């Protein structure tokens, strides 16, 4: 187990000249090989937290170490590079490119990763899709896939550059129970293989799979 994320941050928004605090002295750490769930009521800042952890929001006070690197001092280009190699994102609405086939969607993050050679891309994409039980769906477009299949393609895409961290924002929000179970099982397997899996979810089902559940309330974490 290795610490991959260490946060000690403060975050607030300015709205109509008023300062609205989101987090105050928020201290969190995440390790590889574990499945974390972050829960809380709507508007408590779950998505804000995941955006900061995913290096999509750089406007905060404090320090954020990702793989022992202080990311608050990095340029936008360095942050983009780090996102590409270290973090895989999964979203509620799947967000696959409807004009690309399943394997082409998986290849997409690899296009800006110079460490993966062009001739290796398709092979890697097919391996990932096979691993997720989609060997018969590699040439299908998103509209030809079920919700569960689309989310599995999104997971394969998140794994394209073999990141250490998987950030999932409500990954089962648009799925039925059966598919929800499948997706959580996949994420659990990934954590067992050494990934740091962080899931933001409203669903209580996630507690069955999570090693650690964080509750976000009033800008603070309750474990």
């Amino acid at each position, binding site marked *: 187990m290795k610490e991959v994320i260490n946060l000690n941050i403060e975050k607030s928004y300015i709205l109509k000249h008023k300062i609205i605090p989101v987090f105050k002295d928020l201290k969190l750490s995440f390790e590889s090989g574990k499945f974390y769930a972050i829960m809380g009521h709507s508007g408590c800042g779950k*998505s804000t937290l995941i955006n900061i952890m*995913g290096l*999509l*929001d750089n406007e905060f006070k404090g320090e954020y170490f990702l793989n022992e690197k202080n990311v608050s001092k990095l340029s936008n280009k360095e942050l983009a*590079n780090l996102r*590409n*190699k270290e973090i895989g*994102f999964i979203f509620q609405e799947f*967000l696959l490119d409807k004009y690309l086939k399943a394997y082409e969607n998986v290849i997409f*993050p690899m296009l800006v990763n110079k460490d993966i050679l062009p001739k290796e891309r398709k092979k890697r994409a097919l391996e990932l899709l096979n691993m997720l039980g989609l060997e018969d769906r590699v040439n299908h477009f998103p509209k030809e896939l079920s919700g569960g299949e689309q989310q599995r393609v999104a997971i394969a895409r998140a794994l394209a550059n073999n990141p250490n961290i998987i950030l999932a924002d409500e990954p089962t929000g648009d799925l039925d129970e059966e598919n929800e179970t499948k997706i959580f099982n996949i994420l659990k397997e990934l954590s067992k293989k050494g990934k740091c899996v962080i899931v933001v979810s409203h669903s209580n089902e996630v507690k069955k799979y999570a090693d650690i559940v964080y509750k976000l309330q009033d800008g603070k974490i309750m474990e």
Partner: protein
Amino acid sequence: MRFKDILYYSLLKVKRNKKNIFLFIILLIGCLTITGALTYKSFISKNIEYMLTKDLSLRSLGAMAAIEYEGREKDFYNEIKNVEHVVEFYNKSYYFLSAPLSNDENKTVSFKYGTPNTLPKKIIGKIINSNDTGVAVCPVKFKDNVKDYYETDNFIDGKELLKNGISINVPIKEKIDGKLTFSGKYYQKKYNVIGLYDPLETYDNYNTCYISASDIEDLYETAYKAGNGNDLPIAHIIVDDLKNVDNVMQTLTDKGFSTFYQGVINYDHINEVNQICNIIIIISCIGIFILTILYIKKINNDNLQNMGIQKAYGYSNGNIQNFSMCELLIISFISIFISFILIESCYLIIRIFFEDYINLKDEIITHSMLSYWFGFLIILVVPIITNSLLNLFYNKKNAINLIRKK
């Protein structure tokens, strides 16, 4: 990111996104309209340029004698002779005569006054000298009946005329008790065709032959004079250069002669046409610009989440812009290619099927490459500008806002 990858994935998306047909149609119509209008302007400009150098009628004037010259034709012509820049003049009645052919009275040949100053500049064969008689210079493709203008198989090869010559049979009319009647006699003559010319070079009809001054005078005086009144003499005058026409006209007018241009370019009409073309071009450019912005905006709005994902996965603003730009340029190039094919096909169709109906030289109805380049440039530049402007807006948004379509 490799250019190959950008190109490959852009091509894939262009091919698979059926909505791109709208942008393709906008750009195609815009390209055709702009190129078409520019080509037409170029055609008019070339036509004028050609006419100014080749059409003798633009260097020709007519002058009617003042009343005091009645019965004094020689003095009238002497006055004209002394005017600077006048190179040729003769009785206007000798300028152009139509005569029925001896083998068929329904078919005609038109004769024009043939001297070194009036003959076409390019003649295959011999020219007519001032002492010649019984000779003619005729078109390389002769049509003996201009009424059947659209029947293309009525052309006679000029080489046949060189062999056989051309013969006329004109009924001579006479005035009896003020009435014009057939005298019972015919003016018959055969002309040996000694040279051939291209009537498209001189803006002549396909049945116009040039004969010597003495021959046309003889024909008029014998067969046609009776049909004309004894009006004041009118001279047909040829000026040495286009730039001197107005001066000569003024000089003749100052002498009290009623002067008129033989050939005039209607610049008002031409300016009107040019203005219409300019308006079409401007409207097309503005139209393409607005429609392209609206289309790209719509596409980008549909694509916001995708852009957000790309940013989330480490794509820079430059990478994202390169993809959208590449897609647009592919569509632009396809539009350019198709419009080029369509325009070239039109030219081919005109040349192949309507060649004999169009009384213009190839170099006038040929297309201007500048028209193409300008049309193509607009089709390339407009998407680049509109995409760049819109991307300035999207570049500022972070990935999460794009994913949430804010």
